[in-house]
């Protein structure tokens, strides 16, 4: 089974391990991520007002290409932000005929919102099944205490994008449990990391990301997983200051959920991209006998 796959800019550059581990895991689980040809940036932020149709042209182009590429049913992505932008744009195409026509005439396409935009996590849960993932595990992550950090983009606005309950999601924890890890719940798992304020307000990012990490660690996390390259960057960037400012806080590795998936499915550390993370997860995994 081949699924059309949109990587987005970051997965080809600063988040390579996110992609290599996901692609290889797919093969083990019996499907293939087929990268779209000649894709463009999705725009990295869905416009929060309706009076910004221009910003929808880039993601609309991606969707139109994706429809032509595969069986015309779905497109998947790994990055939470790409997922949010594509899914919300698709919603506009499904629901708003007038805007759809304006955008189509501008980008010279005839896309009508036929695709389902699904996150890779949804493919694992709904198409493959976490029970099948569990059966494929050759290196269980026994004893590793993992906090699943969702952030905003997989969950809000809930009526359009939520891949799970938007106040209390468990999809990543369920996957971690299937991999043999101990999933740790923590109150800040759906809060924002500070997002694009990394451009001009690193103090705010450090506070918000610090709140997320200290909440995870307070609840016993030894490692945090995410699905968003911007969350990953903001958390890593804020870790030093959190270590200084929050008493008792101990830095933890912050990696992509697919990196743990890959390891559990038997991938090498290189394939899972573990050497690229600023806080190395390998000593912890070794200590746990993974």
């Amino acid at each position, binding site marked *: 089974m081949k699924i059309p796959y949109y990587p987005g800019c970051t997965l080809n550059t600063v988040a390579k391990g996110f992609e290599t581990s996901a692609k290889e895991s797919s093969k083990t689980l019996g499907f293939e991520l087929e990268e779209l040809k000649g894709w463009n940036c999705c*725009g990295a932020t869905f*416009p929060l007002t309706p009076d910004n149709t221009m910003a929808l042209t880039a993601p609309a182009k991606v969707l139109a290409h994706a429809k032509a590429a595969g069986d015309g049913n779905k497109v998947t992505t790994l990055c939470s932000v790409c997922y949010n932008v594509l899914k919300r744009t698709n919603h506009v195409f499904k629901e708003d005929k007038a805007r759809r026509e304006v955008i189509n005439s501008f980008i010279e396409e005839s896309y009508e919102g036929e695709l389902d935009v699904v996150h890779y996590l949804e493919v694992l849960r709904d198409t493959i099944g976490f029970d099948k993932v569990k059966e494929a595990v050759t290196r269980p992550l026994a004893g590793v205490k993992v906090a699943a950090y969702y952030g905003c983009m997989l969950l809000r606005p809930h009526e359009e994008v939520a891949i799970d309950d938007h106040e209390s999601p468990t999809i990543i924890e369920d996957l971690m449990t299937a991999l043999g890890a101990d999933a740790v719940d923590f109150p800040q798992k759906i809060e924002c990391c500070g*997002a694009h304020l990394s451009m*001009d307000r690193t103090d705010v990012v450090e506070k918000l990301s610090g709140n997320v990490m200290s909440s995870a660690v307070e609840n016993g996390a030894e490692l945090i997983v995410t699905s968003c390259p*911007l969350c990953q960057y903001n958390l890593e960037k804020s870790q030093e200051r959190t270590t200084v400012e929050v008493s008792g806080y101990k830095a933890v590795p912050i990696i992509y959920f697919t990196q743990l998936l890959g390891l559990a499915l038997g991938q090498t550390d290189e394939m899972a991209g573990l050497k690229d993370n600023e806080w190395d997860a390998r000593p912890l995994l070794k200590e746990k006998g993974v």
Partner: protein
Amino acid sequence: MKLKLSGREINSASMEHLERVSGEDAKKCYQCGNCSAGCPVSYEMDMNPSEIIRFLQFGKIDDAMAANSMWVCVGCLQCYSRCPKGVSAASILEGLRQLTLRKGQDHDEVKDLPVEFIKKAPQQAIVSGFRKFVS
């Protein structure tokens, strides 16, 4: 603080403009404060989301524009998610930003961005930062 009610301000052309751009009607809000309670950056705002909306209900768009709130909003949509009236403070703040940027008044100077940030940050941080802060 006392706010003087003025029909002229409440129904001003700029208020109408903001409503059209943001797609939101501030008058739907009944000031429960849920948005501000859930907003992760309220602490940093001159006026928190429900205060911005209160000022707009009185037509005080200049005060809402002068506050730093629109520039520290992270667009996380917790406000909308928790609003019992279905109001999106996020859309209102984006509307205010849009009105400012469309006049060519940038919030950030591209030349001032730290090289380290441009080199290391994921592209999505830069692209979305540009969309929020630069016209």
